[in-house]
C-alpha cells in the first residue's frame, strides 16, 4: 500500500470532539459487549489523538465511563452511586474497519499516601462526584496561596489570578487522576508547573520535534565485558 509523505503521516494530532465520536463509540461498544442492558457503561468525557499512516489511523483515547453498579431499582439502596472509570483505548481504523488494540480501565478512586503538606487526599472525593464539595474552593484557595508563596508567583491582575486559581484547581484533579493511574510509587501533586494549562506546559517546556524520526547513526557495539 502506498504511503503518504512522512510529514503528513507521523504527527499525532489532538482531535476535536466530533472526530472522536466514532472511535469513542466503538470503544464503548467493545467495553459493553456481553453486558446486560441495565449494566452498560455510559460515555463521559473523551479526549484523544490520532496518528495517521497510509490508509490507517491509530486513535489513542482517554475516556471516563460511568457505570451504575446496581441495575434493579427494587433492590438497590438509594441513592445509587455511579462508578467512574478512567479508560485508555487504542483503536486502529483501517479502511473504515475498527479494531480495538488495547483497553485499560480502572476505577478513578485510589488510596494515596503522601504525608507532605500538599497531600491531595482531601480532594479525592472530587473524582467520584459530579460537582465539587462545598468546601472545595476554600481548600483549593488555601493550597493555591501556599503555591503562590512557595514559587514566588505574581500575576498581572485579579482576573489573571482568578484564572490561574481555576487552572490550578483543575490541575489538582488531573494530578489525582494521574496518581490513580500510576502503577509505580510516584507521587503527583503540586509542582512549580501547577498553574499552567496542559497546552501551555506542552508549548513552553516540551519538544514536539522529538516525534520526528531522528537521523540514523551507527549502532553502538554491545558491552559484553564482565
Amino acid at each position: 500500500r502506498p504511503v503518504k509523505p512522512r510529514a503528513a503521516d507521523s504527527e499525532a494530532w489532538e482531535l476535536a470532539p466530533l472526530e472522536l465520536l466514532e472511535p469513542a463509540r466503538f470503544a464503548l461498544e467493545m467495553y459493553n459487549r456481553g453486558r446486560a442492558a441495565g449494566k452498560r457503561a455510559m460515555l463521559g468525557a473523551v479526549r484523544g489523538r490520532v496518528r495517521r499512516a497510509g490508509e490507517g489511523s491509530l486513535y489513542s483515547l482517554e475516556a471516563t465511563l460511568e457505570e451504575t453498579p446496581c441495575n434493579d431499582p427494587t433492590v438497590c439502596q438509594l441513592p445509587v452511586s455511579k462508578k467512574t472509570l478512567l479508560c485508555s483505548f487504542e483503536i486502529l481504523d483501517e479502511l473504515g474497519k475498527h479494531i480495538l488494540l488495547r483497553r485499560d480501565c480502572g476505577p478513578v478512586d485510589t488510596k494515596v499516601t503522601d504525608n507532605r503538606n500538599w497531600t491531595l487526599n482531601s480532594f479525592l472525593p472530587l473524582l467520584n462526584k459530579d460537582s465539587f464539595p462545598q468546601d472545595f474552593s476554600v481548600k483549593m484557595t488555601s493550597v493555591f496561596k501556599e503555591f503562590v508563596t512557595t514559587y514566588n508567583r505574581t500575576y498581572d491582575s485579579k482576573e489573571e489570578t482568578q484564572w490561574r486559581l481555576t487552572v490550578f484547581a483543575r490541575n489538582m484533579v488531573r494530578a489525582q487522576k494521574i496518581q490513580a493511574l500510576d502503577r509505580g510509587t510516584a507521587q503527583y501533586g503540586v509542582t512549580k508547573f501547577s498553574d499552567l494549562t496542559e497546552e501551555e506546559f506542552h508549548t513552553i517546556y516540551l519538544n514536539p520535534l522529538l516525534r520526528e524520526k531522528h537521523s540514523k547513526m551507527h549502532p553502538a557495539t554491545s558491552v559484553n565485558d564482565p
Partner: protein
Amino acid sequence: APPEWDWRKKGAVTKVKDQGMCGSCWAFSVTGNVEGQWFLKEGTLLSLSEQELLDCDKMDKACLGGLPSSAYMAIKSLGGLETEDDYKYLGHMEACNFSEEKVKVYINDSVDLSQNEQKLAAWLAKKGPISVAINAFGMQFYRHGIARPLRPLCSPWFIDHAVLIVGYGNRSDIPFWAIKNSWGTDWGEEGYYYLHRGSGACGVNTMATSAVVN
C-alpha cells in the same frame, strides 16, 4: 549489567540545570551526555554550553525543539562545545557567538543504542550517561518516587521530552532509571525523575543515543 549504577557518585554528572521557559531539553540532554563522555575519557568534568547549540545548531529549532541526533552532528561540524561559563545559557535564541578558540570539548561520532533495557543498563555502566527521549506524561505534576504510568497514557509514540539517564537500580524491588531532567532542582527529586525500568515505560528505550569521544 551490574545490579545498580550511579554516575553521580562517580563525579560524571554536573549539577541539575534549568532550561527555563524554552523547549531546549534536547540541548541539555546532549550536553549532559557529552559531559559524561568527556569525563570518562579525560577525567575532567566540565559543564558545557547549551546556548551554543541553541544559537549555532541550525538543524534544530532552539526553544521550539530539536533532535539529539542533529545536535551531535552540529557539535561535530562546529568543532566542539564551549563551557557554560564561556557561553552562558540565556533561554532564548541569539546570534551565534561561537568561538573556536574557546572550544573545550570535542566529539568524534555519535551512536544509536539498543532498545533492550538490559543492554542499555550494561552500556551505561561501562560507557557513561545516556541521552534518551521520553513521553513526558504526568511529569508536570511529578514530585517523587518511581513513575510507571499506564502504557496507553504514556505511549512511546508521543515522545516529547529529552533527558539524561545517569544511573539505575532498585527501590523496594522496583527497578528504576535515574533520570537527570533540566527543569531545575525545585522539581522532582532535586531535579531528578525516577522512571520504571524494564517495561519500556514512556518510550524510554526508543531513542537512546550517545556521543563518542575517542
